[in-house]
């Protein structure tokens, strides 16, 4: 049982995902219960796996008993265990939110579990082609979930997401082909050994493979200028879905990018081919700046949060690309921290919209007194994102900046430091309106206001406008986690140092 943990982690949600569809024959509303049971099991398994990794180091598993370079290998080290655990925990949290927020159809929960399976698969796999398959499973489930909103717009947003996402994944696949041509293997560890010896790092073949694979993944991560699918998808999906995919989909893709950089191409590649490193750093820095600029210019809060992701993932990718051990730890911390914070922020927008009808920046004016708890949690999350210590957003940034200073990449240091102010630029406006402005939407005219403001998020299944304690609890839990996770950083850093020696010992 323990030996099969990595594969069980993927199999469980897939099997669980099939159940709601079957149950549909008997009962229309069983999806939530099935999903909750499955995800609870998933959290237990992921926790067990993380504990195993912490105590006895990296776990690897050969699927179906085929030996490693030929069969598919699952490799779980500190980073992947953390991401898998994050996926499970966030999935459980969002389910608490979905209980009341809907959608409630059984097929929704099938897709939900499929997405969990895809994300978990991406985080535990040790094979570049297997990664592609999970990437597409994740994509398929995510497209379906985005389209599960009641509004027509959600279908358009989903199609846009699908087309751009598929092109990204296809580019990645093409890159895999180039790597296969260059080395004849698909196993990550094997590739890391053969690249550089069988094919020179700066050969056209390897460079093209790097470009295609990284380019494909940056589409999924939504770095500028390949982010265009993201604001539409996040803003038009049901609140539950926005919270879920904003927390996880880009996060796990960014994880995959890091995996590619360190376990396939390795740090030696980055130092042997400075152009690749600089290109990626440049992309990340541009993403930080333009993402923030676009976020500032939004009037819809959810779109603003979506553009904020563009900027924050720039930060993460910059951290990974700087490549010093500190920067990598920092990028990992920020990756996980951002997932919690952004998921919580989207969940909060859902709560605020249901309670008050506010979806735009101006609509948020004076809402601090209408929804005190949610607004308080929202402000804490926003400040954490800005990087006010001692929240998790600060710790990640500190590590990344520290790594960049050590590597003496000064332009990146400047962008990283400036990102605090850029993030402040869009969150300060919001928090200011939340507490210190005259309300534009009042309780009595709320019905009209909701009609006036083009709703950015829809309530699927017509499940009423009320807000449950569970939904608020999820938002508050995210806010608490955003600060409390800081205390877990030393342990996380230690696990990373122990399980990723090959990339942290340069």
């Amino acid at each position, binding site marked *: 049982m323990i030996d099969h943990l990595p594969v069980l982690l993927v199999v469980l949600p897939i099997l669980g995902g099939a159940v709601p569809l079957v149950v549909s024959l008997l009962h229309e509303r069983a999806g939530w219960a099935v999903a909750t049971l499955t995800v609870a099991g998933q959290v237990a398994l992921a926790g067990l796996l993380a504990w195993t990794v912490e105590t006895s180091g990296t776990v690897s598993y050969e699927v179906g008993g085929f030996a490693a370079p030929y069969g598919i290998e699952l490799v779980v080290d500190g980073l992947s265990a953390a991401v898998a655990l994050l996926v499970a925990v966030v999935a459980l949290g969002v389910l608490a939110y979905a209980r009341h927020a809907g959608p409630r159809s059984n097929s929704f929960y099938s897709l939900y579990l499929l997405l969990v399976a895809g994300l978990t698969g991406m985080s535990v796999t040790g094979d570049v082609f297997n990664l592609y398959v999970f990437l597409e499973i994740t994509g398929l489930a995510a497209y379906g979930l985005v389209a599960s909103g009641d509004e027509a717009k959600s279908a358009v947003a989903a199609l846009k997401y699908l087309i751009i996402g598929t092109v990204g994944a296809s580019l990645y696949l093409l890159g895999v082909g180039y790597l296969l041509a260059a080395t004849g293997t698909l196993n990550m560890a094997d590739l890391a050994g053969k690249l550089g010896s069988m094919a020179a790092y700066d050969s056209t073949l390897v460079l093209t493979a790097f470009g295609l694979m990284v380019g494909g993944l940056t589409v999924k991560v939504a770095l500028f200028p390949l982010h265009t699918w993201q604001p539409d998808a996040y803003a038009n999906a049901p609140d539950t879905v926005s919270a879920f995919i904003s927390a996880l989909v880009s996060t796990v893709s960014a994880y995959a990018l890091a995996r590619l950089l360190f376990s396939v191409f390795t740090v030696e590649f980055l130092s042997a081919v400075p152009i690749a490193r600089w290109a990626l750093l440049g992309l990340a820095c541009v993403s930080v700046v333009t993402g923030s600029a676009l976020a500032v210019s939004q009037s819809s809060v959810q779109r603003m949060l979506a553009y904020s992701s563009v900027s924050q993932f720039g930060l993460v990718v910059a951290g990974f690309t700087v490549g010093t051990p500190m920067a990598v730890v920092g990028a990992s911390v920020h990756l996980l921290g951002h997932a919690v914070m952004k998921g919580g922020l989207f969940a909060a927008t859902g709560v605020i919209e249901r309670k008050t009808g506010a979806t735009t920046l101006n609509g948020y004016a004076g809402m601090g007194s209408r929804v005190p708890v949610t607004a308080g949690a929202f402000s804490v999350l926003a400040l954490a994102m800005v990087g*006010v*210590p001692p929240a998790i957003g600060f710790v990640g940034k500190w590590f990344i900046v*520290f790594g960049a*200073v050590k590597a003496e990449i000064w332009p990146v*240091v400047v962008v990283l*430091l400036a990102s605090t102010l850029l993030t402040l630029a869009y969150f300060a406006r919001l928090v200011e309106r939340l507490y210190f402005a005259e309300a534009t939407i009042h309780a009595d005219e709320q019905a009209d206001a909701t009609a006036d403001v083009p709703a950015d998020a829809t309530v699927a299944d017509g499940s009423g406008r009320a807000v449950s304690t569970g939904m608020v609890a999820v938002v508050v839990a995210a806010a608490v986690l955003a600060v409390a996770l800081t205390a877990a950083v030393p342990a996380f*850093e230690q696990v990373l140092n122990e399980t990723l020696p090959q990339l942290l010992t340069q």
Partner: protein
Amino acid sequence: MTDITSLRPLFAILVSALAIPVILSLERRPNVREGVTIAVALAKFAIVASMVPGVLSGTRYVFSLGKFGPGIELTFRVDPLGLLFGLLASLLWIVTSFYSIGYMRGLDEHAQTRYFASFAASLASAVGVAFASNLLTLFVCYELLTVSTYPLVTHDETDEARAAGRKYLAYTFGGGVAVLGGTVLVFVLTGTTAFTPGGIEALATADPTLARAAFALLAAGFGVKAALMPAHSWLPDAMVAPTPVSGLLHAVAVVKSGVFGIARVVLDVYGTGTMEQLGVGLPLAAVAAFTLLTASVIALRQDNLKRRLAYSTISQLSYIVLGLALLKGDALIGGLLHIPAHAFMKLTLFFCAGAIHVETHTDDISDMAGIGKRMPLTMAAFGVAAAGMAGIPLVAGFVSKWYLVIGALDGGGLVFAAALLVSGVLNIAYFWPIVYQAYFESPEGHDEKPLLEGPLGGRDVVRTDGGDADDDTAESSPVESSEDIPEPQHVDHLGKHHEDDEHHGGPPAGGWTKSGWRGGESTWFMLGPILTAATLSLLLGTVPNSVVFLRIVTTIVGNLPGVTL
């Protein structure tokens, strides 16, 4: 020096942090809420004060929250310098709490719960700044201080208050980024950010260019809150906040946290020796000297009392920075002693301005002719504190400035000594007219004061201080009777109108009513704090050796290696 692990530093910080949820939950019972504030303020002061004897005899109380990664070590340590700031902030919080109650209730302000909660949060962070034992902990508390004071600056919820809040956040977070950059650099250069009396040794041998860059970043970052020019302009704007906020935060806690940061950097990160070696003291001193002169001149042009006080603050803060930057024993003592001295005096001045605002809704100096009749005690306290600001003997300001000038001459900085003296004259120039006109003139016949007036060009509706000409016309028309005093919410503390037809200040038509000297002019909730603060500044001026602050300061400077007294 012995380090003792103790929970006291932590409690000193937490006691007011833990009070926040309590205060928030008591929204409907204001008396209990204010009771909690006072109790917590007293408890905080008691905890801090209990450490004074130990620290003076060479003990340092340490408490560590643990390590969260390389360089991220949250540790609090009470050493003399930290105690100076912590003691000051917690002592004055008590005074300000009483005053806040009088002020907020006198004006019937909105959102008082938020106000008192934010105040408690600010004090927790300010004491955190004081007791931080390394640059990173200092940075953490410094940022939290920014966040917790933001609701106070924006308290009015007017457009102007929001604009001031935005500016405040932009400036101080910008400074925070510079501090973060400097901290990372120091850590990369030396592998530590812990404060060491006399400076971190590894910095002396580090790459001088990087060490200078780190100093520039740190000085610039802390300089924002210390309102060094050209990063000062958030401070006058932040005067839109309620007066107790301007008093405690913008004359004591917030701006002094910036000055305190610079003191830490100069004394405990770089050390005077390394500073001289790197040659970074002189530029800092030059910036400070420039600021203290320029701000004094600008203060002359302000007609709004709080804005004039704000520029005075900018100028006085630079005295402290100048004292630190001169790197000589006496100058250091003078600079550090000016932290409490300025705090007492400026708090008195702000409290007086607030009392005048609450009682008569007068904000502009030109409306204050003869106000001494109406508010004799208040204006007397104002006079005392103003004299101290100018450095007249028997008030606190004299002692610190004496040391400063001696230190400046000692170090051969004749220019800086001259700057200090000129600024002293300017201080008299902008404070004396207020006192003179309050007592010796009447609203009907008062002279034009040396306020720089008359447009130098451009549209004639614009006044030289940048305000609108509308202000003047509205101010000069007297109201029919004192009942016409507008609702407070129409007037903010910078005296700008929100409704044109309202009049907002100046003497009532029949002239100021006469009040006795026994406190008929205002509530004792406000007079008490005013007189306490004024008394403290007199005590520090007349018997400096028996007031604990001078002893703390001499201990700090005495502990520094390589500094002779």
